């Protein structure tokens, strides 16, 4: 089953550990201990805090010892499955909701270390609630970092969200208080406070946050955490939590190749839900947090579910169905090929897609592969320079036809040849996947048209 393939990397290692296990019906304590060493390493390399790893391993060990080795599944995978489940459980349910105040405006306060991404996140959050039909107010309460106010103003302008600022010489507590007044008067809701980045051990700066909290009584105090944070995440989160009483966490910069183990540490220390994750530089790149996906990622198993979701969000279902039918009946034409390339392009840069595939991030030959938008234009031009007959039956395209198509599309004959070759390969692949896709569909899984 697909589920198992997803668990490849760590499962492979565990398989090595379990080689001698063949023939046994149950996992013994010694077997499990050996496996735990690998899991411990995987979690530490993912930046999960040492202490969190220790507690976690103990819990998993308890569950795994004596576990029946299921017939259909190898022991390594069985252990990974337990680990995955426990990790997911530890990260809590999906809770990407904002606590709204009974009496508007709701105040959302963003706090965190320098460079965690608070200002960018404030703008993303504003956009998110704006799309829900609300009228947010962004508040520039970072009076320390040079041009922080200007940064928020520029972002606000891009989003057409008002930005409340009083300049750099004003106490952030007064700014916060005045901004809530402003929101009340002009009907803005929520109020999103962008505070200055600060070290969790800087008492003066932490006291300032406490004073802001006191003054405006926020419904949400969200800790913005860089997903690349290492072991210190525990210290940072617990200090912020102790002094402010956090209500949630936003994990940023998860669009890179970090495994994001800090999330687990922060969650374990504060008990607060991870509400959103930042997945890119654009203001729409704030997404719902899925514990199971992050668990896969921490274990180095890629993010296949996100990939499928992305495909679903961007692919036209009707067209996909039609394409499936054609593949089954071997009617796949150059027109379909073009359509398919366009759909692929809608899913975003190929590098992002590859990043979600388990193991793909490490494959050297895949590095740097991208769908060149220019190439798509060429492809489109070439296909459109063909007659309907040629598009349906490319086999009839001989030398003189190629010359005509090349001239018509402003490309070279080599380009036409390359396209035809690509098409043939795609067709073969389609056929192959089409059959596989069918089988998967029977098992109630998603049709995957490419």
């Amino acid at each position: 089953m697909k589920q198992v393939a997803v668990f490849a990397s760590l499962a492979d290692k565990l398989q090595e550990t379990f080689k001698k296990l063949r023939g046994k019906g149950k996992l013994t304590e010694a077997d499990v201990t050996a496996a735990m060493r690998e899991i411990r390493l995987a979690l530490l390399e993912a930046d999960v805090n040492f202490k969190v790893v220790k507690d976690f391993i103990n819990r998993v060990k308890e569950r795994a010892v004596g576990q029946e080795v299921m017939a259909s599944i190898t022991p390594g995978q069985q252990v990974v499955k337990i680990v995955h489940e426990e990790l997911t459980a530890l990260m809590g349910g999906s809770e990407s909701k904002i606590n709204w105040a009974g009496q508007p405006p709701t105040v959302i306060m963003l706090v965190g270390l320098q460079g965690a991404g608070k200002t960018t996140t404030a703008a993303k959050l504003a956009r998110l609630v704006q799309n829900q039909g609300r009228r947010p107010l962004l508040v520039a309460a970072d009076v320390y970092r040079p041009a922080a106010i200007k940064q928020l103003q520029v972002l606000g302008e891009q989003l057409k969200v008002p930005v409340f600022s009083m300049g750099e010489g004003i106490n952030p507590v007064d700014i916060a208080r005045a901004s809530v007044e402003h929101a009340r008067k002009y009907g803005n809701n929520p109020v999103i406070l962008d505070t200055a980045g600060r070290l969790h051990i800087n008492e003066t700066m932490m006291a300032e946050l406490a004073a802001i909290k006191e003054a405006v009584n926020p419904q949400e105090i969200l800790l913005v955490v860089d997903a690349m944070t290492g072991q210190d995440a525990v210290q940072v989160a617990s200090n912020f939590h102790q002094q402010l009483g956090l209500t949630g966490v936003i994990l940023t910069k998860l669009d890179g190749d970090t495994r994001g183990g800090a999330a687990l540490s922060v969650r374990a220390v504060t008990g607060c839900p991870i509400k959103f994750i930042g997945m890119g530089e654009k203001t729409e790149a704030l997404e719902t947090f899925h514990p199971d996906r992050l668990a896969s990622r921490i274990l180095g198993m890629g993010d296949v579910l996100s990939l499928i979701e992305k495909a679903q969000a961007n692919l036209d279902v009707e067209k996909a169905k039609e394409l499936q039918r054609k593949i089954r009946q071997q009617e796949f034409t150059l027109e379909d090929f073009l359509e398919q390339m366009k759909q692929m392009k809608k899913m975003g840069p190929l590098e992002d897609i590859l990043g979600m595939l388990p193991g793909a991030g490490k494959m050297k030959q895949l590095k740097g592969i991208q769908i060149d938008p220019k190439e798509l234009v060429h492809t489109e031009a070439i296909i459109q320079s063909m007659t309907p007959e040629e598009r349906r039956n490319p086999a009839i395209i001989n030398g003189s036809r190629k010359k005509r198509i090349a001239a018509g599309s402003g490309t070279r004959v080599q380009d036409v040849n390359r396209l035809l070759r690509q098409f043939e390969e795609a067709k073969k692949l389609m056929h192959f996947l089409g059959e596989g896709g069918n089988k998967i569909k029977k098992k109630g899984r998603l049709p995957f048209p490419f």
Partner: protein
Amino acid sequence: MSLFSKLKEGLSKTRDNFTRRVGDLLAGSSRLDDDFFDELEEILVTADVGARTSMELVERVRQEVKKRRITEPAAVGELLRQEVTGILGEEVPRLGWSPAPPAVYLVVGVNGAGKTTTIGKLAYRFQQEGKKVILAAADTFRAAAGEQLDVWAGRAGAELIRHQAGADPGAVVYDALQAARNRRADVVLVDTAGRLQTKVNLMDELKKIRRVIEREMPGAPHEVLLVLDATTGQNALSQAKLFSEAVGVTGIVLTKLDGTARGGVVLAIAAEMGIPVKLVGLGEGLDDLKEFQPREFAAALFSGLAGVKEE
């Protein structure tokens, strides 16, 4: 205040957690057994040294202990310091310079690492040395990045070359290099937009910036500095690797070392890639950027340990 005490102050929180634990371990252990070495490994891992590098380090200490027939846990402290300086190098790394000015520094890193702040501090430092500094605002992407650098340029008394938001960073760099030549500047500091190392397009843009520098000023850039947030965990290895592949990193600036983060991942980077740490950021003040002193760094990290000599 001497650099050593400044480093110690900056590292004090690190030491509170880290060296105290090592100290406790050394003082509290009566034998150098497996538990002792496991605990030592754990301490290193919590400093973000990374599981693999920690294991290797501990293994080397273990071998050394065996070889020299050391039985006193206290003697392990000095051994550790030697191993750490062995990885980081004994020498204080020098910043690259050009026989014919200007020297060109390209500053790169992920989002939020502290590139612009580092450049501000670096500009101030050069200015204090009586050098003429030009800043190139090649981060044309992030909102108000140019304004932020402008403030720093004002503080440091450096000149700033900037274009409109969204302009081609290569063009900014080109203009900055021309300006540097015409105005006989000693050093050009190029601030680039933060980018995650896995974004191929953005890394290509960085390569292009480097090509512009190489073309306009043969022999340049004289330093390619990767700015690394000390709170970063094992992803720093990927950063060091991919930024190096793209633009050839010559040194690391380890920022935000004034918090509780220990920046131990630079050990892994030095061990695996041989990229030296050249500067450390120890606070928010203009003069809080210091040269990285490996011996002092290691000593500061382990000072308070029995058996470790302070320089």
